[in-house]
């Protein structure tokens, strides 16, 4: 092996890498937030909605979970504009991520909701809580608590798979890397650095999720 590693060009482009990292963070966080909303809505629909709605949500989940994210992305970016919808690569990428995460997170949250004992809901009714309050405090919050580890690892998987949006040249870290490598030809060095950034992002997100758990979902101990 007589290859000379040259990281100079990569590090010289640090402002671009920072910008790419920030847009990956922004894209992922937006997709997580909106995707979580979609998933909570669908999980509610799947456990309590009318039959046609349930059927529709099931079809959505199965369709998304059994096709690759890249194909979903192409569908949103190439196919929908052919129907007359005009949108940027960035919006198409965000939409694809939300739709993808929504399907996985729905299944996770539904599992959480189904784990809530019936007695707990009846206790809520007995306390004369409104239906919305029961869903919010008696069903959803404990359900999210139960499935929190699965949900957050799905979030991190989404952040990692957001690198795929570079295939439609949406702004993100991997697109920055692809542009850099076509200018400098230091492909291997660039992708090593970017892979390390993703690793740091993944670890930071899981640290962040631990903090959120402690702030929002932690119950004080009974003793």
């Amino acid at each position, binding site marked *: *092996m007589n*290859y000379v590693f040259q990281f100079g060009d990569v590090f010289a482009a640090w402002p671009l890498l920072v910008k790419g990292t920030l847009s990956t963070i922004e894209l992922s966080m937006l997709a997580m937030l909106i995707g979580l909303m979609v998933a909570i809505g669908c999980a509610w629909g799947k456990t309590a909605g009318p039959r046609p709605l349930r059927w529709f949500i099931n079809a959505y989940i*199965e*369709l998304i*979970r*059994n*096709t*690759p*994210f*890249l*194909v*979903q992305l*192409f*569908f949103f970016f*190439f*196919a*929908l*504009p*052919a*129907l007359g919808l005009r949108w940027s690569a960035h919006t198409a990428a965000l939409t694809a991520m939300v739709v993808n995460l929504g399907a996985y997170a729905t299944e996770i949250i539904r599992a959480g909701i189904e784990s809530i004992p019936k007695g707990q809901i009846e206790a809520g009714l007995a306390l004369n809580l409104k239906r919305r309050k029961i869903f919010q405090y008696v069903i959803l919050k404990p359900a999210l608590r139960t499935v929190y580890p699965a949900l957050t690892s799905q979030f991190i998987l989404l952040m*990692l*798979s*957001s*690198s*795929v949006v*570079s*295939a439609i040249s949406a702004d993100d870290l*991997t697109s920055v*890397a692809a542009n850099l*490598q076509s200018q400098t030809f230091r*492909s*291997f060095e660039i*992708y*090593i650095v*970017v*892979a390390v950034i*993703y*690793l740091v992002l*993944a*670890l930071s997100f899981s640290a962040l999720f631990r903090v959120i758990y402690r702030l929002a979902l932690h119950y004080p101990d009974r003793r």
Partner: protein
Amino acid sequence: MRTFGFSEFLFILEAAKWTVALSMIAFIGGAIGGLIIALSRTSGKPVLQALSGGFIQIFQGTPLLLQLFLVFFGAPVAGFEINPWVAAGVALILNSSAFLGEIWRGCIQAIPAGQWEAAQALNLPYLARMRHVILPQAFKIALAPTVGYMVQIIKGTSLAAIIGFAEVTRSGQIINNATFQPLIVFSAVAAIYFVLCWPLSLLAARMERRQAAALAR
């Protein structure tokens, strides 16, 4: 200009055999790698555990696409001639080794400690203990999540399209560039993946339900 007709669909469908072949390579290689990882993780040897733990952390903490790029652009650095076949195969094998290794580690650790102790009390050496006592029981627990993971592998092979490997997604792109009918082309591509993945998903869900029922008894 070409329009999307039966022969175009056939072109994409033909490419499904490369998707299936790549998935098989990734699964078989990943199963061998995953077993080694899972056994290292449960070996109790600090060095092995640290190495396999690091391997899992790296491959689960970075995007599969970046792993593909690193193999694709890294192999010439190490002095190998590389083509998309080898790059996609190697990257997918490494990736699925990490994920299967982590799944199977859980299954091995789910075997009650009494089983380990009983095997030890019978003075079974490590290989016999694993081969005759632990792994057959772990295999039963591992079956459903492993089938579920196969779906992830099939979907993961679509990323090989980005480095120019002509599987279903890449053929879809080629046909789309020729016909400019993205709606029907990518629907066809999605449908092919769905037909490949859905039966596996159903099977995995069914096995999971059966296992839950067996455990509830």
